[in-house]
């Protein structure tokens, strides 16, 4: 996956701006309550640790099921095991909603896929059309 190729960029954290935005959705600015910078950074570390914890547990579960890919079911089972069973209904709902969005996207069609040609063929076609357009232009000039 291309998102593995970040080399030395140890960006195993969450974007501060996003976290800040989420915090202000939980604690509206009107309440006047806010995190210190130190507390916010600590919060981010906790979030990352949460992801790691759940992944690790889900991974073990998927291995026990002899599966190579971690799926949603493994995540929900992991959440149950770790004492976060309360989250499961909402998690299932979010996953289902996403699946629905994907399905709608696929239905809308993709002009590349629908053309019946591969990307290489489409590219060649495009090159040919550029050539022809160029010829026509220099012909007229």
């Amino acid at each position, binding site marked *: 996956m291309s998102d593995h190729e970040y080399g030395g960029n140890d960006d195993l954290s969450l974007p501060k701006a996003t976290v800040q935005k989420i915090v202000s959705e*939980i604690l509206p600015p009107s309440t006047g*309550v806010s995190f210190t910078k130190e507390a916010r950074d*600590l919060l981010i570390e906790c979030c990352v*640790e949460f992801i790691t914890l759940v992944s*690790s547990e*889900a991974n073990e579960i998927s291995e026990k099921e002899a599966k*190579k890919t*971690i799926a949603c*079911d493994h995540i929900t089972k992991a959440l149950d095991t770790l004492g976060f069973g309360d989250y499961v209904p909402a998690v299932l709902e979010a996953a289902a909603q996403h699946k629905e969005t994907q399905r709608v996207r696929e239905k809308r069609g993709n002009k590349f896929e629908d053309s019946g040609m591969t990307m290489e063929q489409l590219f060649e076609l495009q090159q040919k059309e550029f050539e022809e357009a160029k010829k026509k232009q220099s012909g007229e000039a």
Partner: protein
Amino acid sequence: MPRGKAAVPVAKEPEIMESPVRTKFPTARIKRIMQADEEVGKVAQQTPIAVGKALELFMVQLVHRSAEVAKDKNSKRITAPMLKQAIDSTNEWDFLRDIVAKVTEEKEGARGGRAKAESESDEDADAGEVKKKGRGGRKKKTAA
């Protein structure tokens, strides 16, 4: 594939936990964090979405409990020690004890805060190496 919930007998409709959050965590980032663990292999497309939602709910609870601690202390600022207190008093969050262990008690002056922030960044480098909790032999991937 039989798609069933875990075999837990529920007497009532499982409640979908509400959340005021509209902003989503970046799924690519979540996936990257998951795969930093060498033990973790492939991840289905839906999975970071599920993890993101769980994280969101976790954050809501953590933020609320920390805010409660602040309120108890009549403070409008939520500090690191308050976060630590919220974590220490919640059993399900014992996986975070190591992370907050480095936070010392509330210091009166700003000076104390600065020093903590500096040592925190050093701690981070170490925390990445040290394995916590022995779950599945997690190791962080170094740059390929």
